[in-house]
């Protein structure tokens, strides 16, 4: 008997007289102990399904059709009292933002103990003892300290472990995880994924794992359900769906995500054209029709498409699933060869940036110093793409700010064409220097002025940098730039709020290229976007770079994306460069142990891809108290291979290999060169 049975569920939200259908005709079953994945992009309704199961849709949300049965009980028919008895005790939930989902003013112990105290009437003393045992289960060190801590005193990874522990306190039979690792760094994510798998083995808890990350679903689930525009479009076992997908959206999603696996990395990304429809503007018939390469007019849009069985339990919401040639590759083909890199344009020498922090209640103290960047030395050549990768707090964004002059350096030099600019804040830089060094920001919504039209904002950039001879000329150039970033010219008159996230980022790119920049610093330019849109914006960025011969400094935490587009890669950890070199060299042995761990932690969506798994202990140390010696030694899995206390005491030297590949490590050259690849070639698949 299924543990959870969702039958033709429809959920709508009521806003200002408008009814917005968030989820339509959604069915799903979960057997006891099973792990079910729910995949989709933002706005597809996957979180609404989770809240629908919990019967917590808020005053605006309403179930308009269908039912949710848990353990053969209709959840909608339960009294509030019975519902409370299920929430937290039989169905528990883990959320995306661990910091936000813990009460900031309550000690962790009290928040954990509350669950058995509410549901089982346990005494406070016993509940705390159980909380303590549960903390050991989720592998948190020093449980007594953590029980007394407030959430803000813990790191993001520790907070998420607390939320998971809290969900498991009453040993629920179903655990709903809503993007549980999205807010976390990839090495921390790997630890959480391992923990979830272990807990599932131990407690036999069924899971509904909601994520936009296909690799993560492959790592954790038995079955999955792909959602698009409020509907399930494909469902089946992970093995079936990943090897023989039978819905164009699933396939589009697969082709749009960059791969880390060696053979795949050179394939061009195939973006899904267009944007997901707004809930109130869904097309007739197939929701995916307008974006589908296989759409047949008057057939796909003629009637509502039901879920069609492929080979039970595999099902697809595509009426052409048995007509389409699923193995045909789209025409996009291989990546075009990159123009060879030219002269050195930017030289960074021994660059450091320290921040002073800490002003207490009684005035500023000679406080802690955050060492954001430590002794960075590297060069950037004309026309190349240099990717900077690292986890949060590694100093990559600080470096970006130093380059464009939003911050000034503490010491060291930034030489643009041989001229020092590190001491000049952006307002003091000569206009030509500012025009040369432009930036694309992570969140396009925050960097466009909401009250000024898109075209005006691009024209303004042209005016500031004295581009164009007259106003008419600048207006014409604005329209050319819109063409270049593949936006309709009519968008010039629109306000930013009338654009989607991907379109806004295109405007951001147009603005950065407006000055004729020679170097564009892009700080996580696509990480706020959905995967299908990510591919399109990435492609645009690389195309524009190739056409204009611009140098691109691409900052990202996404290794697959970096592998896909970078010529050279620089890996940072706690403000230090730990590895730098041509992309091929960095992604294959010899590795810096941190690069090795990073690569092994990325969840791969490729079926059959072999991956050595290294899960790092602990968290990234604070930049206020960086460890002495090698910054990575506190988490390094290869420390034992270095004799003595070298790692703890001495900053490692840069060991140089061919083609400018360098690794900052104490490991013996022989060990470094003898390393095995992290990712094996995927055997088959589409």
């Amino acid at each position, binding site marked *: 008997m299924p543990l959870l049975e969702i039958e033709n569920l429809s959920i709508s939200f009521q806003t200002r007289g408008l009814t917005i259908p968030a989820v339509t005709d959604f069915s799903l079953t979960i057997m006891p102990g099973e792990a079910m994945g729910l995949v989709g992009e933002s706005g597809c309704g996957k979180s609404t399904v989770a809240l629908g199961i919990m019967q*917590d849709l808020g005053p605006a949300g309403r179930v308009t059709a269908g039912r949710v049965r848990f353990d053969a009980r209709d959840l909608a028919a339960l009294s509030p009292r019975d519902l409370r008895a299920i929430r*937290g005790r039989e169905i528990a939930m883990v959320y995306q*933002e661990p910091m936000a989902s813990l009460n900031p003013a309550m000690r962790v112990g009290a928040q954990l103990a509350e669950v058995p105290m509410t549901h089982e009437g346990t005494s406070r003393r016993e509940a705390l003892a159980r909380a303590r045992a549960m903390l050991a289960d989720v592998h948190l060190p020093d449980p007594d300290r953590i029980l007394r801590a407030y959430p*803000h005193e813990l790191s993001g990874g520790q907070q998420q472990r607390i939320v998971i522990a809290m969900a498991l306190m009453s040993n629920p039979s179903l655990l709903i995880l809503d993007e549980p690792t999205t807010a976390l760094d990839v090495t921390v994510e790997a630890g959480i994924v391992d923990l979830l798998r272990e807990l599932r083995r131990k407690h036999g808890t069924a899971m509904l794992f909601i994520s936009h990350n296909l690799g993560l679903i492959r790592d954790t689930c038995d079955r999955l359900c792909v959602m698009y525009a409020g509907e399930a479009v494909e469902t089946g076992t992970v093995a079936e769906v990943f090897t023989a997908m039978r819905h164009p959206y699933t396939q589009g999603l697969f082709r749009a995500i960059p791969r880390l696996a060696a053979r795949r990395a050179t394939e061009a990304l195939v973006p899904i054209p267009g944007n997901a429809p707004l809930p109130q503007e869904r097309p007739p018939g197939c929701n995916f029709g307008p974006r589908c390469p296989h759409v047949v007019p008057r057939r796909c849009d003629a009637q509502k498409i039901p879920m069609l069985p492929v080979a039970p339990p595999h099902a697809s919401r595509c009426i052409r699933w048995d007509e389409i040639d699923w193995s045909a590759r789209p025409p996009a083909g291989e990546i075009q060869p990159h123009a060879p890199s030219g002269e050195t344009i930017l030289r960074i020498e021994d660059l450091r940036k320290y921040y002073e922090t800490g002003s207490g209640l009684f005035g500023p103290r000679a406080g802690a110093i955050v060492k954001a960047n430590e002794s960075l030395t590297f060069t950037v050549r004309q026309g190349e793409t240099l990717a900077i990768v690292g986890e949060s707090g590694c100093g990559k964004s600080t470096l970006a700010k130093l380059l464009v002059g939003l911050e000034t350096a503490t010491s060291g030099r930034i030489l643009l064409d041989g001229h020092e600019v590190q001491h000049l804040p952006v307002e003091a830089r000569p206009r030509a220097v500012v025009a040369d060094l432009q930036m694309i920001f992570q969140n396009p919504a925050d960097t466009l002025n909401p009250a000024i039209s898109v075209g005006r904002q691009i024209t303004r950039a042209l005016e500031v940098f004295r581009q164009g001879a007259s106003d008419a000329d600048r207006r014409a150039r604005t329209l050319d730039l819109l063409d270049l970033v593949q936006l309709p010219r009519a968008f010039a008159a629109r306000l930013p709020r009338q654009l989607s996230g991907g379109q806004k980022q295109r405007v951001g790119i147009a603005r950065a290229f407006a000055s004729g920049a020679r170097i564009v610093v892009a700080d996580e330019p696509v990480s706020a976007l959905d995967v299908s849109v990510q591919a399109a914006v990435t492609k645009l960025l690389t195309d524009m770079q190739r056409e204009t011969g611009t140098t691109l400094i691409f900052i990202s935490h996404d290794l697959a994306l970096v592998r896909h587009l970078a010529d050279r890669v620089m890996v940072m950890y706690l403000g230090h460069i730990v590895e730098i070199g041509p992309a091929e060299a960095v992604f294959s042995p010899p590795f810096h142990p941190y690069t090795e761990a990073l690569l092994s932690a990325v969840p791969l969506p490729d079926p059959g891809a072999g991956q050595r798994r290294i899960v790092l202990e602990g968290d990234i140390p604070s930049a206020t108290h960086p460890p002495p010696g090698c910054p990575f030694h506190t988490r390094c899995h290869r420390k034992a291979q270095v004799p003595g206390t070298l790692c703890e005491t001495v900053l490692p030297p840069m060991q140089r290999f061919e083609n400018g590949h360098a690794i900052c490590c104490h490991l013996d050259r022989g060990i470094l060169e003898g390393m095995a690849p992290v990712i094996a070639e995927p055997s088959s698949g589409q």
Partner: protein
Amino acid sequence: MALAALALTVIVFALTNLQPNLEKLARTQASTRMSDAEVASWLARNGYDRPMLIRYSEWLGVVPAWRGEDGTGGRCNTDPAPRFCGVLQGNWGWSTRFQGEVSAILGDRLAATGRLMFWVMLVMIPAALTLGILAGMREGSRIDRALSTVAITTTATPEYVSGVLLIALLASTQAGLSPLLTDLGLIDRPTLFLGNARSAATEPTFWNLALPVATIALAGMGYIARMTRASMAEVMAQPYIRTARLKGLPFRDIVLRHALRNALIAPFTVIMLQFPWLLNGVVITEVLFSYPGFGWTLVEAAGNNDIDLLLACSVVAVVLVLATQLISDLGYVWLNPRIRVR
């Protein structure tokens, strides 16, 4: 704090020592029928004719005190007279209006106001917080709208309006409820409450203190309630409240254990800011009910150009404002564990 007090006292000293004000003082102290020449000689005899800066320094106690020609008079009339005799030496001077030591008068009056404020706070804060939390815990509900209307109405009504209304309604032998209740024999006093609170300074009872307390509390309450409501509504929309809800906690526990403390962080600062702001209300209300407290004294001192008393009142006001700010900052740290003194 010392700087603020210094600046304020300089200003008050300068204003109270303007020539017309001093002449008025001389006439009220000696005789209203004095000629201009007599006024001038009175001022000279009492040391008022010397430069303002010197006299201010004497008041402060940084230059030796002035003595009359016969060795008597001036600020300190003890024997032997100390060389310095100013605020820094603990001598707050002589009140010309009440004919007594300023420190003694002000002490009494502050104590009286303190008693009044104690009851105001005791009524106002729990009432305001309850109102705000009940309104904010279900934003947009009927109870929210009803309570918000009450809060806005009370705040929008100044003390001199609400005070007069309360007196007319509850403390008049001719109008309002009192005649009705007397006729019915429900009360054995002529009025339900006493409209004049002079007796409350010496022996406070519910009968004589209720109206001034209600007047101040009503005006202050609405503002705090609105702040609490906004803060509570914001907290109730937070993800950690959803976490608590989906843990299966009953609504009462969610409000009391999870929302309350977080919702009190913002209003706490407002409540502490309210203390100095309530001084306004205190002045109006104390005068309205003839309650001999700090506000009433301040008005009397200002009306009679009582230099030493006014200066002392200013210092007290500054200390009060700054002290409440300090308490508010410390309390904020206590409520919000994210801010901790290391």
